[in-house]
């Protein structure tokens, strides 16, 4: 046994050290960032650099720096947020969703009321006031808009020119463009159920073009999926299938972007954030990439556009709570927004900041000039678990378009249950 003493001492020391570390990790409190720095946890890697740019810009206007932290797994991100919010180990700030997902988080009491910061930004003209509803829970604001993506139709101007197609200004013009593209051997529209969530895109687009008021009411549980107006929207989509206007339903957005630039797919419906994917596929704004807001099918309906905006949220129990709230107060400052949206190449919620991408800048000008009604995206509308389930129903419809009636009945059944649960929770 001689000689075994030192190794056993070493092992003991090692064990004690390991146990201390484990205990410290388990029992310790969140250290947070050093003074002057606030961490923002997000779920998207492409947002890391823009967030760092915004953080650096904030330092020049508020002596505070935002430090991006990314958990690129959506599921893991949500788990961390939900499980840590009630503890003092929660992140200081979060990049979250707007709409009902934000409300779902706000009712936990774990995120900060940012109404004062919002009002301050509105007073300075730093934010479009019409976005307020998407960030509101019980009339208080719980998140500040980060980006502002419009949902539009991307197209290839060269292809349109080649086949003598004008950018559609009316619904009939849009249908004629599809027919012309089909005749030229180009698949007119990108439709997809790949990656699950995009299954809602066409339902959202067609419904909001045909009856934006009904879309808004249906999404907020005031109307029913079995309504003839919802049926009309699905029948319209089914008629596009009959005309063979859609790509195969397993074509991802990345592949569709490349096909659009190549000129084999005519139009891709997506948020303006697809711009960076199109650029990655070799698309040149104005040359091989253009975008337009899908015209209203009903000319009498209020002109509208779907938008998507992430929310910057401050947590109640974050280690750097006070600094996080202060940072929220300067988030919409033009210098911060310019740095952020310029790096992200997306639209900006601050009207004083022009989008860096000319295609998006043109769209923002049209949306603001025509005073289009901003409707939140399907994904952020309605109780999250209802949305998660109805996208699967819509995927089923896309693969079997003749099933539109049974799809709508199923969706209404889910909606009845989900709204009941949601409203019960609202009352409590």
């Amino acid at each position: 046994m001689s000689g075994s003493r030192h190794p056993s001492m070493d092992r003991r020391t090692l064990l004690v050290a390991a146990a201390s570390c484990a205990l410290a990790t388990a029992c310790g409190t969140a250290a947070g960032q050093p003074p002057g720095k606030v961490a923002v946890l997000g779920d998207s890697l492409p947002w890391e650099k823009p967030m760092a740019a915004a953080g650096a810009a904030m330092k020049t206007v508020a002596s505070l720096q935002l430090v991006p932290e990314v958990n690129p797994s959506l599921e893991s991100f949500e788990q961390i947020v939900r499980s840590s919010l009630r503890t003092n180990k929660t992140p200081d700030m979060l990049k979250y969703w707007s709409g009902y997902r934000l409300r779902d988080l706000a009712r936990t009491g774990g995120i900060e009321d940012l109404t004062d910061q919002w009002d301050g930004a509105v007073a300075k003209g730093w934010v479009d006031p019409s976005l307020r509803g998407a960030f509101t829970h019980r009339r208080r604001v719980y998140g500040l808009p980060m980006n502002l993506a419009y949902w539009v139709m991307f197209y290839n101007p060269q292809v349109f020119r080649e086949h003598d197609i004008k950018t559609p200004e009316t619904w009939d013009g849009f249908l004629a463009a599809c027919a012309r593209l089909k005749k030229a051997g180009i698949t007119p529209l990108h439709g997809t159920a790949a990656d699950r969530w995009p299954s809602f895109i066409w339902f959202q687009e067609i419904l909001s073009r045909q009856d934006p008021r009904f879309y808004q009411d249906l999404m907020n549980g005031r109307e029913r999926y079995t309504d003839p107006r919802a049926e009309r929207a699905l029948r319209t989509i089914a008629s596009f299938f009959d005309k063979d206007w859609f790509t195969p339903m397993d074509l991802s957005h990345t592949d569709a972007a490349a096909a659009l630039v190549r000129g084999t797919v005519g139009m891709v419906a997506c948020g303006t954030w697809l711009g960076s994917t199109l650029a990655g596929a070799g698309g040149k704004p104005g040359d091989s990439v253009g975008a337009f807001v899908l015209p209203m099918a009903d000319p009498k309906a209020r002109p509208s556009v779907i938008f998507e905006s992430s929310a910057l949220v401050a947590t109640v129990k974050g280690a750097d709570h006070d600094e996080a709230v202060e940072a929220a107060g300067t988030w919409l400052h033009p210098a911060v927004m310019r740095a952020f949206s310029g790096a992200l190449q997306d639209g900006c919620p601050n009207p004083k900041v022009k989008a860096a991408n000319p295609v998006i800048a043109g769209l923002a000008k049209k949306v603001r000039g025509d005073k289009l009604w901003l409707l939140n995206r399907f994904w952020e509308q309605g109780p999250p678990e209802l949305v998660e389930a109805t996208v699967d129903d819509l995927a089923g419809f896309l693969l079997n378009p003749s099933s539109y009636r049974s799809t709508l009945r199923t969706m209404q059944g889910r909606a009845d249950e989900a709204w009941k649960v949601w409203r019960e929770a609202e009352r409590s």
Partner: protein
Amino acid sequence: MTGTTTPAPGAAKPTHVRRGVPVRTPHQAAKAGGGRLGGPLAALPWALPAFAFVGVLLVYPFFRSVYGSFFEENGFTSSFTGLDNYTRLADDPIFGRSLLNTLMWVAGTLLLPVLAGLLIAVATHRMRFGGIAQLVIVLPFAISGAATAVLWNFMLTSEGAVNQVLRGVGLDSWAQPWLLEWPQNTLSMIVASTWQATGLNVVLFAIGLRAIPRETVEAAELDGASGWRMFRYVTLPQLRAVTVVVVGMAIVNSLKAFDMIWILTKGGPARSSETLALSMYRETFRLFHVGYGSAIALVLSVIVVASSWMYLRRQMPDVSGTAAQS
């Protein structure tokens, strides 16, 4: 017997004593309660760390899941609902489809990679350049499940390589959206999984083949066995031990199939290709139906444990014999 350290009393000639590890008989152990070596409780401090690890990492989570499955829990609030989550399982068509897909995975994984592994191992055994052939087949096993899924995604989409090849050779009517419709999406993914998993089975069967005594084969050859008869009556029985391992692993792997499905279809479209593992994940972590997800996890655990236990009990006579005696 254990008492081989001393010659048997009454033996005519002293036999060669084999040196072995000293072993206490149960009688000695019982007698030594307060003796030098300590009683049964003396082992406890040594076993405690292991118990603690298994308890914290396995036993507690298991019973916590069982407990959680009696609650309706959304991550923030929780209310006792008794067996509601289990009755919901019975009514849920998605759970039914998920169970069916899981069974398809088990059947497919047992049939394809095990059979293909055996055939390839036998065909390449003692073949010229057989080692190289085996290496080529084993290579996909070195690729992660996630990377394999990405690779097969290129092949199985409507505009993917498989359909392009089919159209290229004039079999246009065979081209179809492989991942969009049930049941071919599940079947296609089983084939993709087979492509990856066969390699390991080839290795295991190849080891088994090399372990067959040369004499056994030569004796069978002298008796006139060759070809199919040799395979059926000599090779296959000799591979029994390896087959038990390969099939056991195939059952467990198929029951926990996840990464390939998640990347290729995310369980869709319309949840048509979900297995129990995916349904559990979606309900718990996407829809935050924690109690319902726990109920699915429990059903899956029961299936995994029951099928593994039944299989091993049947295939390992020694184990079952001991169990029967005790």
